[in-house]
Every structure is written in structure tokens, then in C-alpha cells.
């Protein structure tokens, strides 16, 4: 190729990249970097000026018990949600993967429907369904002779309730992950083993489990990462209450930046940077996990 046509080609390559470079640069890369600067300034409102204050925002964040509270809530929520999502979905996926089951398409769709619906709307609707005074669940409980339960207003119940709803809402995603993993196991393998006289338990222990092991790592870490994106449900469901018991870090940031009468954007940015680092650490774990998974899969071949 002549140098002119190479240059011509390079130009086109960059023209093809321009939309991504501009949009993703302005709305993803720049914010990631700018957050660091914003976390070092005192800045009370988007229209007002910024004053460099060094690390004092970080000191304030670290000294704020409510920040540590939101940190704990975020991690605790993750611990509540991830095992349920990863293990229960595996059970359902195994059932929904068996070729002899009738109505399989319909069932898969039904379990998947909550995933595609708007999380923020689910949050609002669920608040009504769980309303202690007149929601349908309470009414039914009272008819059965129990007292009304304030699922979202009770400080011990609110987070577990949100966790159950979250698992319900995103169950389908992990189920699809598992179905994709299960479909990599050739069906002939099961048939051959069954001819050799293996029972269902043995099939599971000696074929399904070992074949799924590499996927377990990937799916767990994907699920962990997804639990960090939980603003929509928490904000519409509880708004962080009762008394900060469900305030995840994203709501903490939102409160300081947008919900306060005098926004403290520097403080919020410092919390955001710490949050970003937390997500990045888990993300690094993920890359390592995928790498380890690849090696495990490679070993078996």
C-alpha cells in the first residue's frame, strides 16, 4: 500500500472512532478524572466557585460516621444479595435447561420479565404493595390474623426487604448467565454417562459441577459488580431510610450533591472517588477471576 492510502485509511479509522471518543470522552473518561480534582475543592453549588482545600474533604468524609454507615450498607447488601442470586439462579437454570420440561419458553420468559421493567417504577409500585396501612400484602396478613408488617419502615427489615426485591428484580440476568454456561455442556455427555448407569446425583457431581466451575467465578464477579448499580431501586423504594439504614454509597453521594439545601459537591466528590476505587478494586478482582477461570477451563481440555 502506498503511504498516501495508508494515511487515507488512518484518517477514516479515526473518523470512525470520533463519535465514541467525543461522547465517551466527555461523559465517562473526563468525569472519572475530574472527580479527583473536584474532591480537592470546596464547592457549594454548581454555579459557585471552587476553592482548593487539599485533602480536607477526604478527612471530612472519613470522619463522617454516616459515610462509614453507607459503606457498610453497600457491602452488607452485596453479601445478602450475591449468594442468593448466584446459587438460587443456578438451581432454576438447571431445571429450565432440561430438554424434557414442557412450557420451557413460557417459564423462562416469566422469570425474566422483571429484568426488563423499569427499576425506578418497580420501586414505587413495591412501596405501595408493601405499604403497612393499606397495601395488599398487609391487608392479606391482617385477614390471616397477623398484624400489619412495616417492611420498609422497620430499621431491621428494610434492608433485607430491599435485598429480596433486588434478587427478584435481577434474578433473570444471572439465570441467563447460567443457562449460557449450561449450554456449553454437550447433552451427549449426560446421555453417555446415563448409559453407563450414572444416577442424577452422580451426573450433577461428576459432570455439571466440574464443567460449571470456571463459570462460577465469572458469574459471581459480574453479579457483584452489578450490585453496585443499585441507586434506582433503593432511592425509589426507601430513599435511604428509615434513618439511613438503607443508605448505599450512591444515595450518600446524591444526598450531599443534590438533595442538601447547600450542596457540598467537594465532599460528595470525595465520597464518589472512594466509591470509584471500591468498584475498581472489585473490578480488578474480576479481571483476575476471569483470567483464573480461563486457565481452569484451559486445564480441562
Amino acid at each position: 500500500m502506498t503511504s498516501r492510502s495508508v494515511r487515507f485509511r488512518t484518517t477514516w479509522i479515526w473518523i470512525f472512532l470520533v463519535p465514541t471518543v467525543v461522547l465517551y470522552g466527555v461523559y465517562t473518561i473526563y468525569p472519572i478524572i475530574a472527580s479527583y480534582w473536584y474532591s480537592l475543592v470546596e464547592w457549594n453549588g454548581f454555579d459557585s466557585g471552587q476553592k482548593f482545600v487539599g485533602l480536607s474533604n477526604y478527612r471530612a468524609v472519613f470522619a463522617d460516621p454516616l459515610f462509614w454507615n453507607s459503606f457498610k450498607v453497600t457491602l452488607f447488601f452485596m453479601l445478602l444479595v450475591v449468594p442468593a442470586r448466584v446459587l438460587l439462579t443456578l438451581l432454576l437454570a438447571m431445571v429450565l435447561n432440561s430438554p424434557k420440561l414442557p412450557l420451557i419458553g413460557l417459564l423462562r420468559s416469566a422469570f425474566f420479565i422483571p429484568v426488563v421493567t423499569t427499576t425506578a417504577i418497580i420501586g414505587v409500585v413495591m412501596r405501595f404493595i408493601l405499604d403497612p396501612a393499606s397495601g395488599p400484602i398487609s391487608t392479606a396478613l391482617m385477614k390471616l390474623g397477623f398484624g400489619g408488617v412495616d417492611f420498609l419502615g422497620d430499621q431491621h427489615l428494610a434492608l433485607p426487604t430491599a435485598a429480596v426485591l433486588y434478587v427478584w428484580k435481577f434474578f433473570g440476568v444471572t439465570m441467563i448467565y447460567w443457562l449460557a454456561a449450561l449450554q456449553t455442556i454437550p447433552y451427549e455427555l449426560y446421555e453417555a454417562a446415563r448409559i453407563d448407569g450414572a444416577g442424577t446425583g452422580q451426573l450433577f457431581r461428576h459432570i455439571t459441577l466440574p464443567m460449571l466451575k470456571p463459570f462460577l467465578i465469572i458469574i459471581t464477579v459480574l453479579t457483584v459488580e452489578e450490585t453496585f448499580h443499585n441507586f434506582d431501586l433503593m432511592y425509589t423504594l426507601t430513599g435511604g431510610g428509615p434513618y439511613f439504614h438503607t443508605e448505599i454509597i450512591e444515595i450518600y453521594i446524591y444526598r450531599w450533591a443534590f438533595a442538601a439545601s447547600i450542596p457540598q459537591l467537594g465532599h460528595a466528590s470525595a465520597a464518589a472517588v472512594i466509591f470509584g476505587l471500591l468498584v475498581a478494586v472489585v473490578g480488578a478482582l474480576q479481571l483476575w477471576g476471569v483470567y483464573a477461570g480461563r486457565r481452569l477451563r484451559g486445564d480441562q481440555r
Partner: protein
Amino acid sequence: MTAQAVVRTDRRRRLLHRAPWWIAALFLVGIAVLWIFPFLWMLSASLKDNMEMFTGGLKLWPSTFVWDNYSRAWNDAHFGRYLINTVVTTLVTVVIVTIRCATAGYVLARYRFRGSKLFLGVLIATLFVPTGYTIIPVVKISMQLHLIDSLGGMILALSGGAYVSAILLYYGYFRQIPRELEEAAVVDGAGFVRTFFSVMLPLAMPVTATVAVLTFITTWNAFFLPLVFTFSRPDLRTVSVGMQAFVGETATDWSGMAAAGVISIVPVVVLFIFLQRYFVEGISGAVKS
């Protein structure tokens, strides 16, 4: 035994053999009905009058059908307007995201150029950046560019989200297309742009469908960005933000709210029912790659 009888006993045996599976299926159907109960309840609540909502409990069938709830949600609660906002935002975002991910995925997969490795690396590093992290600078820069408080600014911000998985889907697909195809196009006199638009992009139709469907649902359901972008412009709200605002403004009109919920959710559910395959493919892509 006649041949017919053989067939009959054979069929009976097969039915008997399948009986446990049918029982399992029926059991699962029961669970599935419970699973989608919140949606059934919302649908029924949207047709009840407000009195029945309070007293009806879990009963699904409304005693009288109150269609008026829908007109209240549509007009008084402005969900007609919110729906238009959401449709416009979603469609434009889908077009922008699909085009930019297709072109980026294409050049990254087919050409080596200075910075291509770095480009991919940066993309993968930002795979999971949460909105809560980027929101403050996004609002600030949108203000500086005079793009806040406008549908256009919201669309740009939504299209500028990472969408790394979409680029990677295209990347993976374009990678495995044999070189000869491209060379044949070049021999036929097609330039860089023609090769992409008339040979490569049509080949990637399945990926395009997947990316478009995923982006559609992500954007339709987006909440954090639209919430922050419409603080001072209630007329620009999308349905997800409108629903949250509804609670604050008319806390007593439950059935109107349920109707608003149905209006907001039906479009995505219908889309899902028809294009389910692409959606599932997009999600399982994350595990396979």
C-alpha cells in the same frame, strides 16, 4: 396385538414417562405466576377505583372497570408528555449508541493502528463505572456546555455512558469475519466507508439487533441521569422520573399511579416479548466472552 394397539400402549407409556415433567412444569407455572404477581396486581389496580384499592387486598379482578384512571394518568399526571419524552430520548440514544459502537468496534477489530491496544484497554477498565461516580462532573460539564435542562443534553449524556459491552460485542463479531470478504469488496472498488456500510454492517445484523434492544431497555429504564437533568424542567421528565414525582405530588391517587406504571412499562415488555432472543443473546454474551 394389532399394530394400532401397539401404538396406543406405546403412546400411553410415553405419556406416563412424561408425567413427572408435566407435574414439575405445573409447579413452576405456579411459582411463575407468583413471580409476576406485582405486575398482575399493578394491572388490576390500574382498573380499580381508589376505594377498592384500599379494601381489595390481594384480589385481582376489579369489581368495576375504571378506565378513567388511565385518562387521569395520561392528562393530569402528564404521562402522555412523559411517554413522548421517553420515546424520543430512547430512540435517538439507540441510534447514536448503535452507530458509535458499530464503527468503533469495527475499526478496533479490523485494524491495528497506533493507540488501538490502549483504546481497548481503557474501554475494558471502565466496564463497570457506576453513574453515582460520574454524575457530578457530568452535570457540571453539561452546564458549561449549556446542555443541562434539555432533552438533547440528556440524550448526549445517556449516549456517552460507557456501553463497553456493546463495543465488545461488535468487536468480537467483526474479528471472526474472514479477511477475504473485505479484500473482495476492495477488489470490487469499494472504499473504506462503502466496505463498512454495504458489506460489514449488514453482516453484523444480529449484533446490531442485540445492541439496539439492550440499549433501548437500558435507556428506557434509566433513572439517575434523567432525574438530575430534569430538576428544574418537570416538562422534560421521562416516565421513570415522572413516576417518582407522582408519589410526591398526588400521594392519594393510587390507581392513577398504577395506570401510569402500566403506561410506562408496557412498551418495554412488548418489545421484550417480540425481541426476546436478541436480549438473551446480549446478556449471555457477557459470560461467553
